[in-house]
């Protein structure tokens, strides 16, 4: 196991060493249930799919994911452990990736634990499990996008509450970027190219098509590139900010 694996393991274990991981998972499952059954009308729709379940994920992640991302680097800087970590023979890339992957794994675990709803829908009808699988994957990738923003914001400040607020705000911008309300607000003189480019940066644009079962590799590529870019930015910010 390389240093990336060692760092990943330590980070993931630290989530479970405190009640954080358990609280995160429990709240995630409860709110997911509330959204799906109460707001989404899971039963009333009478359809064997998980659309109401997945359609609330962007809004759920908006608050849940920044909560785990906020401590990623802010705490390291606040307690001074960043000095310990970065003077060990560890590459910064491994440190950034290890932390991100551990947090991403935690969201993956929480997401996987929603499996009873998948069993339910299979028990009640005959859903397209391929679509459901793709939607799960899309949802997880979107969570990764939120986390990557959070990683960068957390690197920018020693204060994890500030990191949380910054992350929520930025994530909100990226969520609504692709929403029709915002796109319609563009005046007519703005070239369509600009509007399209703007919409293409939005999470909803990509996530909606995935969660409806439109499997386009470009939507996944978008999230992968998005994650990569924000993690690279995290590394740059850490280099800049670690001295103070």
């Amino acid at each position: 196991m390389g240093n990336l694996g060692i760092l990943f393991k330590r980070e993931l274990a630290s989530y479970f060493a405190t009640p954080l991981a358990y609280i995160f998972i429990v709240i995630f499952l409860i709110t997911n249930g509330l959204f799906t059954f109460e707001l989404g009308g899971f039963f009333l729709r009478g359809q064997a799919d998980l659309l109401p379940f997945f359609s609330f994920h962007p809004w759920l992640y908006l608050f849940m994911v920044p909560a785990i991302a906020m401590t990623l680097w802010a705490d390291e800087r606040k307690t001074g452990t960043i000095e310990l970590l970065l003077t060990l023979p560890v590459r910064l890339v491994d440190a950034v990736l290890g932390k991100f992957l551990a947090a991403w794994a935690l969201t993956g675990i929480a997401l996987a634990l929603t499996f009873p709803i998948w069993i339910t829908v299979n028990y009640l009808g005959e859903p397209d499990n391929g679509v459901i699988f793709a939607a799960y994957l899309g949802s997880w990738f979107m969570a990764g996008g939120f986390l990557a923003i959070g990683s960068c914001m957390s690197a920018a400040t020693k204060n994890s509450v500030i990191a949380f607020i910054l992350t929520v705000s930025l994530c909100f911008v990226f969520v609504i970027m692709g929403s029709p309300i915002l796109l319609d607000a563009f005046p007519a003189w703005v070239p369509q190219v600009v509007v399209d480019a703007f919409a293409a940066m939005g999470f909803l644009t990509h996530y909606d098509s995935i969660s409806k079962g439109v499997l386009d590799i470009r939507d996944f590529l978008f999230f992968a590139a998005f994650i990569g870019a924000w993690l690279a930015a995290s590394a740059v910010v850490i280099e800049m900010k670690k001295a103070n």
Partner: protein
Amino acid sequence: MIEINHLTKRFEQFTAVDDLSFQVAEGEVLGFLGPNGAGKSTTMKIITGFLAPTAGSVRVDGHDLASDALAAKALMGYLPEGAPSYGDMTTLDFLRFVAEVRGYRGEELVERVGRVLAQVELESVALKKIETLSKGFKRRVGLAQAIMHDPKVLILDEPTDGLDPNQKQHVRELIKNLARDKIVIVSTHILEEVSAVCTRAIIIANGRLVADGTPAELEARSKYHQAVSVTLGADYDVAADLAQLTKVAGVEVDPEDHRSLQILASGGQSIYADVSQTASDKGWPVEELHVARGQLEDFFKQVTAQGAQHG
């Protein structure tokens, strides 16, 4: 061998380290001294590869920090200021983590961790979370991770800060025992510590090197070196009697007790015989007369006083 060449570190307008150059060889225990804010910690952070210098270079055993950082970091053990560690881990888990990052696996890992636990006497708290430990234990956890891989170069930023006298003694013993074939750089502002453990001391002020030598050499450069301390039983003008003695540089009177005097030697020459001869010839009302040893503290004050005035 550590080679530090023309190291400079600027933070915006503030110059923390200013054209600092020195070398440290195997077997040396270097005491790194200076007033608060003199640039000690910044220099250590640059040597350990945490911060990049604005100018200049650091080479550790031939590995340049700028181009070959991982190899250099693998050679070094570092206790950062305040001994940070992951509070939510147990001592054992934390040390296992460090050992893994240092490349140990399986039985060797168990053996390494067991050895440092014993070396810094942490067995009793091995299974406790670090955040629940006392300051002394936390400091020892920091030391344990620094010596995990028996490093060639050990850099300790205020290793005894906040420890009780027994713990300080223990840490000093540990450093002495480790030091034989290694390079140890210890920053401290406890000067007695330097005389106790260091083979060499460097004093920096305002980021510049102002003194470099063995603790004894630096003591000898104190203006109180070879001075004669006199306590008088009655008022008497000693200075008039000493005027013809060329070896005497001057007389300092204790501001709180004007019968207590320091007769300073010029150029570190021995003046005791002359002074005591004069005292008996002139019939000084002497209560006590002895040679004062130069104190590192006095020398430290002399060379850093200017820096203190300018903040």
